[in-house]
């Protein structure tokens, strides 16, 4: 707990944590928005979300090893993951669309275990990361460091998110996706091929995760077992922000990033993942208490 006092004594350190948290939070928000999209359209909570992030990270990592700069690797990761997402949908996910939520939860959990083990078998359990070597900015007289690569990742996450929103608003497919999410039956009557829309949504989400995974590989580390934390973070963000509104999603993503960084600093980094999962439980229970209180007022 002495770290907590340290945080109050040196505001620059606190600022550092906040800056890092906000920058990394944009990536969380991106993954969460993809999950919200799939959840809203197909009524599937994709537990394999984090594994898609992990796969995207591996694509960028291997491209980097063969000389493709990670910045240009991102589109490749997105395209590769779009294909992976499409295949996953055609093989398994389409069977649980609009079905019992628990079945889809368990099925995607199975997929996530499968992908984890497959990657572990192919690439090994080593921790990897892409070195971007971009240097850092120094603020507040050198007390606060902002790694340029994190800033870049933040900007790219925002750009991908903005592109996604534009796509959903303007393009034909995007409109079909939104129509299906509002009312699948009506969309079908109006001639939308909903099965194709479901597949496209899942694949699109995978592509977003792929890009996010590339950003994770650039700013952080990847290994076969990192998936579940990203899934849980996305779920938390959605629970707090609700489905759909990208502004709120971004805000809660950044909030989560800051909270996580602060917790990692105060409690020690070895407790950081435990904090994420404990926070999940706390948020769910807290949400339930709030809802219960609202119900009481209604009576």
């Amino acid at each position, binding site marked *: 707990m002495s770290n907590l006092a340290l945080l109050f004594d040196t505001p620059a350190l606190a600022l550092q944590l906040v800056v890092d948290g906000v920058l990394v939070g944009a990536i969380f928000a991106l993954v969460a928005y993809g999950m919200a999209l799939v959840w809203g359209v197909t009524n599937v909570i994709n537990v394999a979300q984090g594994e898609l992030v992990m796969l995207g990270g591996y694509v960028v990592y291997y491209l980097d090893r063969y000389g493709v700069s990670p910045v240009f690797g991102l589109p490749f990761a997105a395209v590769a993951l779009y294909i992976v997402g499409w295949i996953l949908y055609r093989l398994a996910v389409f069977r649980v669309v609009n079905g019992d939520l628990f079945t889809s939860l368990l099925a995607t959990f199975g997929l996530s275990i*499968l992908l984890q083990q497959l990657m572990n078998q192919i690439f090994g359990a080593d921790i990897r990361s892409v070195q971007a070597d971009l240097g850092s900015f120094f603020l507040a007289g050198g007390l606060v460091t902002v790694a340029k690569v994190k800033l870049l990742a933040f900007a790219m996450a925002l750009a991908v998110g903005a592109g996604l929103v534009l796509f959903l608003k303007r393009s034909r497919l995007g409109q079909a996706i939104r129509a299906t999410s509002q009312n699948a039956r009506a969309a079908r009557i109006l001639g939308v091929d909903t099965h194709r829309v479901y597949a496209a949504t899942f694949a699109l989400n995978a592509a977003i995760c792929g890009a996010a995974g590339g950003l994770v590989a650039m700013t952080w580390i990847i290994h076969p077992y990192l998936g579940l934390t990203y899934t849980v973070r996305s779920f938390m963000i959605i629970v707090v922000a609700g489905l759909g509104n990208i502004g709120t999603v971004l805000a809660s993503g950044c909030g989560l990033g800051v909270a996580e960084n602060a917790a990692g600093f105060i409690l020690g980094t070895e407790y950081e993942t435990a904090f994420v999962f404990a926070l999940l439980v706390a948020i769910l229970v807290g949400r339930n208490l709030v809802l219960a209180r609202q119900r009481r007022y209604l009576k």
Partner: protein
Amino acid sequence: MLYGALAVLALAATWLVPALTTQMTFLWLMILFALTWDILGGQMGYNSFGNVLFFGVGMYVCAVVQRDSGLSYYAALASGMGLAAVVSVALAALLGPAILGLRGHYFAIATLGLGVAAGDLAAAWEYIGAGSGLVPPPFPGAVGAREHFFYYLTLALLAATFCTLRWLYSRRFGLAINAIRDDEDKAEAMGIRTTRYKTVAWCVAALFLGLAGGPIGSVAGFIDPRELAFAGSTFGVWMVLMAMLGGKGTLWGPVIGASIFYVTQEAFWTYLLGWQRVAMGVLIVLIVLFFPTGILGWLRQRRARTQASAAAPALQGGAP
């Protein structure tokens, strides 16, 4: 008759197939997992991914008592298991009212978070060995006696679990939790104290899981926080699948499902070098996608269909 035959088989198994004693111990553990998961998942409709929490807590409590109590081996094991049961049940009673207030997938994901958080905490806490785990004290008896001792201990625990659940399901308790599964709001409106029943059901699961933790830690000989004690992506998911494969919400379904699942898993481990975990993932997806009703559920559907088709001509013939 059936029970007698099974009991004789189980008791004689160490003599019939001595090479498989440890595997058989784990088979009993798997059946215990599936049975205790089914209390909530099958009978009460609360699909938990985090029941492994109580197993891990029990394992660690027992191992710490064995390490620090200074008692003789058996006394330490017994008091460790006792304390493990108390701690697990207390934890379930404490968490129950909050966590069990969640419904559907919120409950499932919250319990998933609980299990993983516990594993991460155990892997970070120095007092219980952090990431390098704990080693329970060595068994004092002769070589081979350890396996036999824990085989019978686990078997006894399983028998106790099965009989307790059979008794509970035949009482008002079974009816109440079934009512909660079918329609919780209606059950509450009918005057069933749902929160109390739900918490008690979780406590029963926690009791047996906590008790089982201690002996299994000693069987394995090494307690790894994420791979053995809080193994969410293996034991935690397997519990669900085994109950599902056999048939959720039945007494024998989890037993059958766990047996088939565990034998398949052991076959994978023996014959698929390196790829066994991948094959396991494929199997999990296949079971969920193509066999969600389970073996007993499938048999029941089939019986209903044959009865319906047998009844149909009779009805036609009977009509004037």
